[in-house]
């Protein structure tokens, strides 16, 4: 049972702000963490391998600093970690990211499952895992809160709006983990220190047969043209009038702000 986990290092979003002058994202001084849903994916992978044998390989596409997150994944029990880092990959959107990851996964080869997080805390799109599944021609099961491997099939419980769905797919398949799936373990210090000593290979685009025209800025169909802080009109507004009148005015304002 070989499991590949796609993991992203993300800024701790609760602390990310927009610079009001330049309208750009302030990343300085914001701590980086493993995308929380990816921790669930790692935990699930480690549990599967504890049960069925095999190995867990964690891969991330990111800047050299992402190595830190890979070490945390190793401490959590992953057997191997790969850092996919190349200037050509920077600024990839979800299509390009999923293309790049699918190329790297082909290079790893020999896998039964690919686990991802439900979505990344920063980009928040949830688009990379289905993209990976498509580019590898594999079935996908998103929003998974529980899974079980029976023979050559994986059976997963998905959390949807107001209902659960139990789905079965042939392996290999791509699954995305929801936070309700498990409680990610807190690695012991021995594992943390051992993980520090492990070799983490760094792969570049050429080594994975990645077409440079399909990744990075060039390979990304979407383009962010503007970022800005959501408006928190804090100039409080007092609504005058008799109760009926005030209520109607309020509802208008809330409706205009799409709140009711």
């Amino acid at each position, binding site marked *: 049972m070989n499991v590949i986990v796609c993991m992203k290092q993300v800024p701790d979003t609760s602390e990310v702000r927009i610079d009001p002058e330049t309208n750009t994202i302030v990343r300085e001084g914001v701590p980086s963490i493993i995308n929380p849903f990816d921790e669930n994916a790692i935990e699930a992978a480690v549990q599967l391998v504890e049960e069925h044998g095999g190995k867990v390989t964690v891969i991330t596409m990111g800047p050299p600093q992402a190595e830190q997150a890979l070490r945390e994944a190793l401490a959590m029990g992953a057997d191997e970690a790969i850092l996919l880092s190349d200037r050509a990959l920077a600024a990839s959107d979800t299509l390009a990211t999923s293309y790049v990851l699918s190329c790297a996964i082909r290079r790893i080869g020999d896998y039964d499952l690919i686990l991802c997080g439900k979505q990344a805390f920063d980009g928040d799109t949830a688009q990379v895992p289905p993209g990976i599944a498509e580019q590898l021609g594999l079935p996908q099961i998103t929003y998974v809160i529980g899974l079980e491997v029976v023979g050559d099939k994986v059976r997963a419980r998905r959390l949807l709006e107001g209902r659960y769905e139990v789905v079965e797919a042939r392996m290999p398949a791509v699954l995305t983990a929801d936070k309700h799936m498990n409680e990610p373990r*807190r*690695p*012991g*210090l*021995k594992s*943390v*220190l051992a993980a*520090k000593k492990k070799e983490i290979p760094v792969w570049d685009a050429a080594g994975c047969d990645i077409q440079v025209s399909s990744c990075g800025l060039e390979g990304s169909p979407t383009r962010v043209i503007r970022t800005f802080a959501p408006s928190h009109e804090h100039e409080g507004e007092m609504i005058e009038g008799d109760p009926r009148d005030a209520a109607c005015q309020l509802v208008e304002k809330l409706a205009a702000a799409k709140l009711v």
Partner: protein
Amino acid sequence: MDFAFTEDQELIFEAVRELCDEELKPKADEVDRAGEYPWDSVRQIAEMDLFGIPVPEEYGGLGMDVLTWAVVGELLSTGCTTTGAVYGAHMLAVYPILEFGTDEQKEKYLPPLATGEKIGAFGLTEPGAGSDAGAVSTRAELVGDHYVLNGTKIFISNGGDAETYVVIANLHPEKGTRGLCAFILEKGMEGFSFGKNEEKMAFHSLSNRELVFEDAQVPKENLLHREGRGFRVAMTTLALGRIGMAIGAVGLAQAAFDAAIEYSQVREQFGQKISEFEAIQFMLADMATEIEMARLMSYKAAWLKDQGGDFEKTAAMAKVYASEMCSRVTSKAVQIHGGYGYTTDYPVERYMREAKLFEIVEGTSEIQRLVIANRLLRENRLS
């Protein structure tokens, strides 16, 4: 002089900080109110291998130095003082075995203590032997291949919940302190039981039980160090324990400071944040300065120990300064919180009560000053 930690140490501290922020701190109040030994938190720090930090790798530990152990104790104390206290008291059993144990004793007792599978405790204090530790009256007699112990110990941290005990008893009362011996006891040994668990003004969930020996049967091979060397074992253990107490006080004071500086920037009176009042700012400045001073003293004592130097005086200085500092700082934290600080809705009133303990255990402030003064006079004797 190098104040930098190694990469490994930074990794460890970061992991412990995270554990404290995410797990221990949020439930610290609950842990204290429960009045029950904090097994949950103890298991959590055990799973993180924290108990193994000062234990050599060959005995299942991480083989880190005393400084690393101390900083982890500080962080735990900031997160949850009770858990920090458990961690500190545990070391009082680990350390004498490490320092004085035979290979067999180390092989037998250290691995489960390193993983936290078993918790340790140290029994010295008796109703009639507090500051005057040499006055221990628990009797030991050699009968065949067993030492037979009779007497009681009180206030023993982790007592009853721990599995492994290092206990001081007197084999030859006529020889005074030179009759003292140290023994390793296991919970469940014949004739070894537990009495009252003290009710205290704070640390409600830390067990401080009476150890009762009624013809307790201790196998001969459980003698730690040599006959008559018990006082030395106790003093060596307490010397290290002082570093633990000093750093625990630093950690607690830090928690109080953190709460105070946050509150001062939220609370408004006279149309402004109270942090804008100079009187509050000065309190915060003094608190931070004193904490830093105590921290540096404690780290230095740990560092001296790791260098193999004589750390006893430095550790005593750190302990007395840090514990008294902690009382001042926690009291100021309550002051900054005003009436709210006096309610049980905020943790600072608990911090203030907890702080007092550090001035008492493992040698009261008075005893620390005695130790310091004795050393000073010895070092500066006029010829």
